[in-house]
């Protein structure tokens, strides 16, 4: 792996390697001194063309825990807002000696452009591009699911996949990079995915995706599900006639209190409720659901740092081979098996 641009082409071996490495990184987060010397002297640039405080600070924390130097480059208020091109920005960062660029961009494919051109010779990590992909989000979701799935099975997470796990992803799939990255990664890890959305918020061509599609949230729950991932819905979609009103959306596709109760009624005591954040409480997820013991929202945030540490470490450690077996980090100590949901 030279770059982490998408999960569509991420092999099973590499996915498992990132998740296993993240387990080892998680152990660092549990220590009193949350720092490794692995990337000392390396420079990581957070290049954000779109506001996202959550993702940026997660990457920043990850890089700092690995002792990298971190430069935050927010495109707003910079030369970029004065018309500087992506090419010039990339070449500038290259001249400053960036070893890795973590890029968030409103335009789908912008990270691919950085990786494919000779504008910059750094490792590129896609931190969310337009409505395309958000691979580290999918990896942290998978990491969270894997811990849960392994704990239910009474085994360790390391080396494990998600075979047999039933995952529903509900909401605005059309505009969601999180949904796309999750569909590809969960397929690779062996989970069974069902997308639940109003037909207006599913892309033309979704029938070719490796998942099931449903327009009915209640039916999907009744079929049995081990994780429900709610996607953020932007209120402005309402004005573009994707759905008639936020109330109707909430009733038909939101995870409300009735559906939270339904999980109990249906006997799904181990089903978790996930959300990539930030949440619209009362729209796609009710407050009770968000705050319930089933919710993994905060665990996802915590795991995000571990997964991003793993991605930065693997891309910058120079080992770009396909793994033959699960690697071990000599200095990271034993991995944590503590479940933090």
């Amino acid at each position: 792996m030279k770059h982490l641009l998408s999960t569509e082409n991420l092999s099973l071996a590499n996915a498992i390697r990132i998740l296993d490495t993240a387990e080892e990184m998680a152990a660092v987060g549990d220590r009193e001194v949350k720092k490794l010397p692995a990337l000392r002297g390396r420079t990581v640039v957070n290049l954000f063309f779109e506001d996202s405080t959550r993702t940026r600070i997660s990457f920043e924390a990850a890089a700092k825990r690995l002792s990298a130097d971190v430069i935050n480059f927010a495109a707003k208020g910079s030369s970029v807002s004065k018309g500087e091109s992506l090419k010039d920005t990339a070449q500038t960062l290259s001249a400053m000696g960036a070893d890795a660029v973590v890029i968030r961009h409103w335009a789908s494919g912008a990270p691919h452009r950085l990786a494919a051109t000779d504008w910059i010779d750094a490792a590129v990590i896609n931190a969310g591009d337009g409505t395309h992909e958000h691979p580290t989000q999918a990896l942290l979701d998978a990491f969270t699911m894997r811990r849960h799935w392994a704990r239910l099975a009474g085994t360790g997470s390391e080396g494990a996949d998600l075979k047999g796990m039933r995952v529903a992803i509900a909401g605005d799939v059309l505009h969601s990079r999180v949904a796309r990255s999750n569909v590809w990664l969960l397929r690779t890890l062996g989970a069974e995915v069902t997308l639940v959305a109003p037909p207006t918020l599913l892309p033309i061509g979704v029938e070719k995706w490796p998942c099931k599609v449903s327009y009915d949230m209640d039916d999907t729950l009744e079929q049995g599900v081990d994780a429900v991932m709610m996607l953020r819905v932007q209120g402005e979609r309402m004005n573009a006639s994707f759905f008639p009103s936020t109330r109707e959306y909430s009733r038909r596709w939101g995870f409300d209190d009735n559906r939270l109760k339904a999980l109990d009624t249906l006997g799904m005591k181990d089903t978790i409720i996930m959300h990539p954040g930030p949440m619209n409480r009362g729209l796609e997820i009710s407050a009770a659901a968000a705050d319930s013991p089933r919710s993994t929202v905060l665990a996802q945030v915590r795991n995000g740092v571990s997964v991003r540490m793993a991605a930065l470490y693997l891309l910058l450690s120079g080992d770009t081979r396909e793994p033959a077996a699960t690697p071990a980090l000599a200095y990271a100590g034993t991995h944590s098996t503590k479940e933090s949901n």
Partner: protein
Amino acid sequence: MAANTGTYLIRGASILGGEPADLLIRDGVIAETGTGLSAESSVDDVTVIDAAGLVALPGMVDVHTHLREPGREDAETVETGTRAAALGGYTAVHAMANSTPVADTAGVVEQVYTLGRAAGWVDVRPVGAVTVGLAGEQLAELGAMADSRARVRMFSDDGICVHDPVLMRRALEYVKAFDGVVAQHAQEPRLTAGAQMNEGEVSAVLGLAGWPAVAEESIIARDVLLAQHVGSRLHVCHVSTAGSVEIIRWAKERGINVTAEVTPHHLLLTDDLVRSYDPVFKVNPPLRTDADVQALRAGLADGTIDVVGTDHAPHPSEHKECEWAQAAMGMTGLETALSVVQHTMIETGLMTWADFARVTSTAAAKIGRLADQGRPLEAGEPANVILVDPAARWTVDPFRMATMGRNSPFKGRELPGKVVATFFKGHPTVLDGELNTPYPYADATAGVA
């Protein structure tokens, strides 16, 4: 008036891909045809060209070219664009109206026309805008452009659809007064707001806003019915979908006076290429699916689609070296059109060279009402003739092209066919595959027709 353009004896060229024959070109016309023509039959200095193995065709006519001048001379000029045209085998191009200022007055179309004559590489026939400023609100002075020295017959807001049905109806009606044609860029604007690529399987994965086929097909369906209702002539620019071919086929069966064009890139490339996010593949209408490509080829072969139009759209590099969403739409095409059509239509057995002459020259000249172009290769006809080496193979290198645009989607591809010579009004603008000299208009600098 005919300038002294010299005398050329072309020996043994395969006429439209058929039997070899000689062509004697003198004083701007084909003076004689036949076998074993003697150079001594002429008193002039005769340049003899051995054309064994070459195909002689009528000079190509492009119904759809963006020359960018006036306004975007950093992208292309009439001079550079028409050099590219001559090298590509063209003897006439229709220069689209979306310049700055827009070609929506007699003054601007006459300027472009004059620049074309000053360059002297091909006939430059300006296309007039349908609406003032391409704004889609008010008809431009179509009659004044038709009556100008540029003698405009084709009108188009290309780049923007004349989407208001009443305005489209009026334009179709009005151009009947001077045998004009409205060339429609068929794109329903509301269905394509923010559109980045063909809507389908690939756009779903890439997360790029979709440009659905129905946005093109619904406008074409409306326009052929309007053309039928008012009894006028409609031309559909750059048809890109299988459904559009079906609608046009249906309209022609009903006797509706509609013509259609397809670009070389839509005959070869598909939206799979967008997976690279390389904006060199960003174009409007977008690259479609393989099923569309096959339907377009079939439509061109059976005459449903009348002509190949390049939609040559040069852009400066900074408009392509950026994010996909930021990039300009368009591809260069003048210097690759012949090769791409040979590759997709002739080498696949779908068409002959005679068919090639129809779709790249004869039919195009009829649509634009160009009396001296697209003529048979017979004695007494204007000597707009090209010689093509169909056995040649070459690798596309945008940096070796005459166009200023480096945005060729065929970069790095090996393609068949090479233009060896282009005769424009009896004068070789291209010889031995290289640019020669422009046609020596006696009055070019004066700009008088």
